[in-house]
């Protein structure tokens, strides 16, 4: 774990990511002004997912940690998704 202490992320990296995140935010606002039916929600959530992955990978350091942390995050999201999916099996087919 010693190499972790020496790994310093440059300020620049964070600022680039911020610029990207703001751009994505404004894009999602713009896109959702156009009427695209159900696609609107999908796109908005997709952009949110992309933004999240940058926050997770860079700000929260997942890119530089042991891969097991990434798998755990994915696992948690997967479990929540499956629970929502199964719940919808009730509501969709009533």
């Amino acid at each position: 774990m010693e190499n972790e202490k020496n790994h310093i992320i440059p300020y620049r990296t964070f600022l680039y990511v911020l610029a990207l995140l703001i751009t994505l935010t404004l894009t999602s606002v713009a896109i959702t002004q156009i009427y695209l039916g159900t696609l609107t929600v999908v796109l908005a959530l997709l952009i949110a997912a992309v933004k999240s992955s940058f926050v997770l990978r860079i700000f929260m350091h997942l890119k530089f940690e042991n891969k097991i942390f990434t798998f755990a995050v994915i696992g948690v999201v997967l479990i929540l998704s499956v629970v929502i999916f199964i719940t919808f099996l009730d509501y969709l087919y009533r």
Partner: protein
Amino acid sequence: MNATPEIHRDDLASKTGMWLFLFTEMLLFGGLFIVYSIYRFRNAEAFHLAAHELNVAIGTINTIILLVSSTTIAMSITALQKKDKKLALILLCTTIILGLAFLVNKYFEWGEHLKEHIYPGSAVLALRGQGDVLFYGLYFFMTGLHALHIIIGLIFIIVIAVKISKDKITFDNFVLLENSGLYWHLVDLIWIFLFPLFYLIT
């Protein structure tokens, strides 16, 4: 009194513990996302219309506020690692101020709704129909719970800032700063999803 070097310090254990705690927070809000998704499905039209009543401009500003605050706290770790204690503290204070700004915005936003008697349990809201009741119920509950987490996060960061100023957290012992950052980023992540789900599904 300076902190004596700890023989049994395990930073990875500390960080792992924080990540595990973040998982519980993800599932806590996850439960609300379950409720949101079901009721959105059952009241699509009403949710769509109610979302129009939220102020996209304030929502966007708040989103950007949190994104910047995540940047500043991430940068504060770099600053501390580079032994620039002063910059680290400035960045942390910026984070705190941004967090407070978010809360102030929320206060005014909620104030607008309360002025029109739109709040959980109000007669006015009940008259507007079930879809609206559920939309606003979820809106207040989820943004309210989120705001509570912002407050908790800010307290956490203030404690860390004090510790840094007293040299209890230093360039070679900063896992607590990292952990406070992780918590703050989670609060940001939750908002990244709340924002489109309430403001942008028009």
